[in-house]
């Protein structure tokens, strides 16, 4: 039996000016999985993410965490936000302390822990995000990639069981993006559920266990990366291109008549080509 950690039922959210940002969203996030939400700009991904930790309250519909409907009382929200950590897309919107350690300690300090415990948790989080050596640095002197990692560490310090990241690799060079994916991979191995939004479909295809495709505030389709990214009709409707690995594989396996498993990564594709 699959255990759902976050469930959205019929979630609708409208902006004050009446624009519908989310329209009857259904989502069931399986515990311990890596989920990627893809869709064009303005599809509602960021707004959706604000619902995961109760920053936005749906106008209609319900959000469940571990099978329980979330409570929007102060204590309920605090409990939820400890469990569901949200990393914003723009690190400058999140970081406001002047030193790295201060920034990372905010979460655990707000949990009312002892100084030693806060320090231990902060250092563990900094280590996990690879920013330990910058702990004494002023935050405004950090590069963009480092700021993103500091933002991740500041959420990790609360030891959430679900990590929600809005475009964790956008605007980063390849090396920094790889580094973030490595961090996420380790967290996944520790049993955390990870939800990201991204425009990088090649990354989403190789990385995720499960894909949600969004368009104009609605979930157009979902499923395993293999299912979603071979559904050309769905992709066209959502305005998304096929990952190049899938494209190369389908084009070159056309007319071979044998049903073969899609390669998940570049290396698997190379192996497949070599074996031809």
């Amino acid at each position, binding site marked *: 039996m699959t255990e759902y950690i976050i469930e959205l039922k019929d979630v609708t959210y409208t902006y004050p000016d009446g624009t519908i940002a989310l329209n009857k969203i259904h989502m069931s996030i399986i515990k311990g999985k890596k989920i990627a939400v893809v869709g064009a700009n303005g599809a509602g991904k960021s707004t959706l993410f*604000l619902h995961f930790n109760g920053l936005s309250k749906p106008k209609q519909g319900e959000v469940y965490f571990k099978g329980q409907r979330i409570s929007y009382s102060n204590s309920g929200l605090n409990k939820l936000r400890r469990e569901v950590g949200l990393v*914003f897309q723009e690190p400058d919107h999140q970081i406001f302390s*002047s030193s790295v350690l201060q920034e990372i300690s905010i979460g655990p300090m707000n949990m009312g822990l002892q100084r030693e415990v806060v320090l231990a948790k902060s250092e563990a989080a900094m280590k996990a995000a690879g920013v330990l050596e910058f702990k004494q640095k002023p935050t405004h*002197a950090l590069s963009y990639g480092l700021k993103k990692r500091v933002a991740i560490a500041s959420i990790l310090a609360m030891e959430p069981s679900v990590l929600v990241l809005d475009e964790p690799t956008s605007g980063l060079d390849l090396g920094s993006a790889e580094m973030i994916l490595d961090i996420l991979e380790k967290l996944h191995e520790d049993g955390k559920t990870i939800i990201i939004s991204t425009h990088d479909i090649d990354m989403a295809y190789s990385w995720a266990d499960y894909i949600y495709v969004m368009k104009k505030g609605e979930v157009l389709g979902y499923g395993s990366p293999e299912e979603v990214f071979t559904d050309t009709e769905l992709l066209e409707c959502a305005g998304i291109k096929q990952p190049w690995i899938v494209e190369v594989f389908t084009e070159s396996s056309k007319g071979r008549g044998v049903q073969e498993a899609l390669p998940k990564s570049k290396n698997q594709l190379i192996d497949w080509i070599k074996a031809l």
Partner: protein
Amino acid sequence: MLLIDQYAYANKLSKVHPGEKMMFSILTMLIGLMSGSVGIQMLLLLIMIVVTLYGAGIPWRVYLGLFIVPLSFIALGIVPIVFEVAKSGAGLIYSLGFLDLFIGLSKQGVPAALNIVSRSIMAVSCLYFLIFTTSMVDMMEQLRKVKIPNITIELMMLIYRFIFVLLEAAALIHHSQSARLGYSNVRSAFSSLARLSSMIFVRSIHNSRALGMSLASRGYSGDLRVLTYEYNLNRRNIALITLLEILLVVLCLYREGI
């Protein structure tokens, strides 16, 4: 501003306990302010210059450059004290007659101005020592320890952080405006500047909303609490500072003839 900030994090005294540096700077400044002697103030100024330039390793060009701002303020401030307009030339050191008025250097004004200048420069040098050697983060932590109300420190923290956020935003807007010839002539420069100012205002509201959300995500409950590293107090430094300050007090009292 930014230059000072960089030196505050990377100077030869950055590892020294911020409390010691604050004690040195503030006590010295207090002694200087209480003493009426120009000689003592010049001595204190000299001490501060030596400690900042040699002790902390701040380049003298940077240091002197930063003195220009307060010096120009002082210069403007002493003009009305030094110059006096009087009916007779008796109270003036040197004067020019103008109709039936005398304009000249005032006999009381000149020593008073000298006193003000030496006091101000001395006090500025004490503060410069502090801001060149101690980061804002450390200073705020010390203020917290001496029980300055939390709200003040939180405001300092946010203002300090936002200076950089807004500077960056302003630089970005300025670049994008310049790239489209926004500052090519006086007319467009004015309108570009006006737009930049209003954009900054909008951005800061937008930014503060986003920050509020990120704080809420981390269980903010009306009280910003952060962790900082502890510095070790150095007994030798404290003893040295205490000794120096006592010496200065004794010297002051001696000069006053007590």
